[in-house]
């Protein structure tokens, strides 16, 4: 059993990590009251720019940083349109998906089939020798270890610091936040940038550590799954870990079953994660309805999706 379980869970963490980055990124954005549906596009941009940077500099770490920054930079289009111009956030996010798909395909056209320096697996000293746990959690690339740091930090930032309090109050009630002297616009811009940067990093993870090469449209719907995971995790990075690894597990299950010689079509197995995500969404909403935990928890920040303008009363 353990020789099946070990690689399987290891693969679940491996394919869950990009979702984790993207989901936590979107949590930052949505906590400030802005919904960014452009994750898919931003991840593609992060993937292609990260790959290019790694190819040119020969250093995947530079690649990851560049992917991260370009995700943040492109998300500023969304920030400008939705925060400054108060455009419909859903439409702006969708446009970002088209834009990202197109830009990444144009930039990536000469990169198909090229090999760039990528992240290598690093075994953590001593920890990787622990049976099972070592294999599952401590035989990975550097970006996975970074996610171990980043997620708890995000939780602390959002729920235990002043910055987090600002972000959340802007997301719950921008009018009040404005009255007490917070700069709603600046905080939303910053949250969208942070989110975009994490989505870019998630993309760079795919092209520099997971696959590792550039394939057109390589994100394959993970951006949308991340949005679903935000709802599942109830806008909390702690919960996002479970969601992301669960989905990663679904992703890995197909390979694991095939490796054991199961006679199931790869295409049918490919459907699994998406069907599972829909199921997860239904469960989260059902749970919220059943428990009646209050819509404030199940529906996310109160001002989510609503533009804020100082001149208008809401």
């Amino acid at each position: 059993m353990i020789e099946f379980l070990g690689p399987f869970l290891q693969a679940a963490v491996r394919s869950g990590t990009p979702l984790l980055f993207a989901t936590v990124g979107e949590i930052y954005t949505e906590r400030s009251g802005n919904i960014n549906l452009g994750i898919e596009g931003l991840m593609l941009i992060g993937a292609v720019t990260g790959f290019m940077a790694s190819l040119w500099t020969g250093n995947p770490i530079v690649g990851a940083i560049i992917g991260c920054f370009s995700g943040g930079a492109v998300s500023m289009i969304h920030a400008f349109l939705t925060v400054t111009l108060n455009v419909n956030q859903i439409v702006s996010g969708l446009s970002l998906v088209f834009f990202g798909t197109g830009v990444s395909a144009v930039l990536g056209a000469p990169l198909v089939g090229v090999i760039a320096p990528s992240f290598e697996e690093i075994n953590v000293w001593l920890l990787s020798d622990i049976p099972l746990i070592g294999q599952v959690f401590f035989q990975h690339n550097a970006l996975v270890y970074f996610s171990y740091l980043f997620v708890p930090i995000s939780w602390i930032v959002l729920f235990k610091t002043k910055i987090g309090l600002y972000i959340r109050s802007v997301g719950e009630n921008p009018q009040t936040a404005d009255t007490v002297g917070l700069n709603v616009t600046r905080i939303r811009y910053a949250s969208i940038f942070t989110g975009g940067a994490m989505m870019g990093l998630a993309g760079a993870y795919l092209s520099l550590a997971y696959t590792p090469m550039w394939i057109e449209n390589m994100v394959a719907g993970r951006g949308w799954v991340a949005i679903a995971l935000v709802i599942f995790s109830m806008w909390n990075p702690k919960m996002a870990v479970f969601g992301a690894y669960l989905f990663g597990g679904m992703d890995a299950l197909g390979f694991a079953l095939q490796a054991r010689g199961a006679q199931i079509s790869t295409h049918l197995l490919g459907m699994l994660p998406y069907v599972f995500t829909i199921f997860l969404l239904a469960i989260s909403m059902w749970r919220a309805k059943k428990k009646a935990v209050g819509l404030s928890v199940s529906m996310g920040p109160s001002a989510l999706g609503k533009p804020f303008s100082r001149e208008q009363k809401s």
Partner: protein
Amino acid sequence: MLFALIAGSFVFWINGANPFEAYKEMFVGAFGDGYSLSETLVQTTPLLFTGLAVSLTLRTLLWNIGAEGQFFMGAMGATWAAQAFSNQPPWILIPLLMLSAVVAGALWGLPPAILKTRLQVNEILTTLLLNYVAIFYVNYLLYGPWKDPRYPGFPQTPRYPDAALLHQYFNTRLSMGIIIGVILAIVLYVLYKKTGWGYKIQVIGQSRKTATYAGIRVNRNIVRVLMISGAIAGLGGMLQISGLQHKLRLGGISNNYGYTGIIIAFLANGNPLAVIFVALFMGALLVGGDSLQMTMGFGKGVVHMFEGMVLFFVLAGEAFKRYKIQWIKK
């Protein structure tokens, strides 16, 4: 729009091409002669259906991002009917194909509708995720049970029986699909403007609360709208295969038509007559982009990038329209 064109020139320029020549090339490629015009209309046909499908849901303030999957399922349903009833004459077979495609598309719109009305699950996510499921399913059929045994290396079905094919006119690849699409647009327009149902869905779109107070059954109408939307996209899928491709073939089903339909519906502001013109524009962009690809060596991505930019600028333009510039005399 103008800004998007300028921004587009910039893209051509950094790719090392003269922007004016590129636009000229695109225009000639799309409208230059009878053949390219017919090709533009061929590309417009599926876009009309996906555009109309999405525009219907937009009127109720719902987003059907799943037209792509519904299009695939429509193509799948039609293929099933073509195989199951292959010895019927055309006047029975063609309507059967259409019916089967419409049902498949509508059923693909059903789960998001149920989840939306029962549990308030966001329909953007469910419709989108079902796209991937539909595409994987069609892949499965094409690599598995439906594969043409004569060409083991290719993921495609055998050719449809002749009775299941739509006639192509004037020695082009154009079938009656485009006419059906235009008629559908006009019918929808009349439905929206002249019937109680059209008014109801508009009220639902403006305010769910008002609609409930006015005694409109909101949930039932939401389910209906999403299913009809799926049905329209599914019909588009059938016409694509029966009128153009003649067999279900991987890569020959949809050229991101479902996603482009979203842009079309948005730019047309949910108005079915406007959908006709925007679909024509997008069709021309696809064909023009293709000819650009052949003569100047740009990839397909240029078209997507262009679409994204058009959207950004339209959005920004609308926002600026809201702020009128006023001269205040002191």
